[in-house]
C-alpha cells in the first residue's frame, strides 16, 4: 500500500505538465506555454528560481510522505498537499524570489520568504488549500488564513514584496 502510494506520488511529483486542456492542439499549446514559463522563470530569477523550489518540494515530499517521518507521530505530507503547494509556486508572478520549502508535523507544507529574522514570511499550505501565513516586517506583524483558489491572495503577495524590498 505504502509502495503503491509512493509510486503514484513519485510519478506525479516528476510530471512537469499539468493541464485540463483536451484535444491535441489545446494540449500542444498548454505544453508549449508551460515549457516557456519554466524557461522564463529559470532565466528571470538568475539562479534558484521558482522551478528550483518545485524541485526542492519534490525532494522534501519524498522524504516526508510516510507516517511518523519526524519520529514523533507526524502526519505524512500527502499528494494533495504537494499538489496545492506546487500550484501556489506556479501561481507566483514571474520574477518572484523563490521561497524555501519545508514539511510540518501536521502534513502541511511550508514556504518561507526570508531576508532577516525580523523580515520574513512563512506560509503553511494545507491539503485543503488553506494558506496559514505569518510575517514579521520589522516591528509590524501580520498573520491569518486565506483560501487558495488558483491565485496567490493579494495579502500574501503584498507581504512577499515587503519582505523582498
Amino acid at each position, binding site marked *: 500500500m505504502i509502495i503503491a502510494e509512493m509510486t503514484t506520488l513519485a510519478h506525479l511529483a516528476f510530471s512537469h505538465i499539468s493541464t485540463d486542456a483536451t484535444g491535441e492542439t489545446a494540449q500542444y499549446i498548454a505544453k508549449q506555454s508551460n515549457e516557456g514559463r519554466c524557461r522564463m522563470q529559470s532565466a528571470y530569477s538568475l539562479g534558484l528560481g521558482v522551478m528550483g523550489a518545485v524541485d526542492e518540494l519534490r525532494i522534501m515530499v519524498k522524504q516526508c510522505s510516510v507516517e511518523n517521518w519526524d519520529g514523533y507521530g507526524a502526519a505524512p505530507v500527502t499528494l494533495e498537499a504537494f499538489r496545492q503547494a506546487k500550484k501556489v509556486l506556479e501561481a507566483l508572478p514571474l520574477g518572484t524570489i523563490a521561497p524555501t520549502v519545508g*514539511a510540518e508535523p*501536521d502534513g502541511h507544507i511550508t514556504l518561507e520568504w526570508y531576508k532577516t529574522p525580523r523580515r520574513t514570511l512563512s506560509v503553511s499550505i494545507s491539503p485543503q488549500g488553506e494558506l496559514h501565513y505569518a510575517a514579521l516586517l520589522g516591528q509590524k506583524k501580520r498573520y491569518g488564513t486565506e483560501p487558495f483558489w488558483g491565485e496567490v491572495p493579494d495579502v500574501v503577495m503584498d507581504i512577499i514584496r515587503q519582505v523582498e524590498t
Partner: protein
Amino acid sequence: MSNKTELPPIADDELLARFVLFSDWIRHDQTVRPNAFIPHPYPNLSVTRHRELSEFALWQIGQGIADKRSLKLYGRADIQAIIVKAHSLRIEPTLEPKNHANITGWPADKPGQKIIAQEIAASARFVPKA
C-alpha cells in the same frame, strides 16, 4: 511533598534549549526557522532547561532525544525564558526527563502559533553540534 515543590521555578534569564533534529529548521545564515518552535499539532513544545547542566550533559540529553527518534542531532536553539513569557506562554517544568519543561498556553489557531514561533525564532541562537 508534591512534584511541583521539587522543581525549581524558571527564572526570566534562564536559558532553554530546543534541540534541532531537522536541517531545515536552520537557515543558511545559521538563524533558526520558526518551524522549530511550532507545537502544532501537539499542544505543548518540549524544551530542556540549561539549569545546572554542563555543556556535555546538555548535549547528552539532546543526543538521547535524537537517538530515541532515530534522527540526527544538528544542534540546539537557545532561547531566554523571558522571550517565551513575553508572549503569554507558560513554561512548566516536569520531573522527567531531567531538566525537561513544556511550553504551554499556545493559541489554538495555526497562524496565531506561527507568529509567536517567528518572534521566538528571531530571538533564538543556534548552537551547532560539535
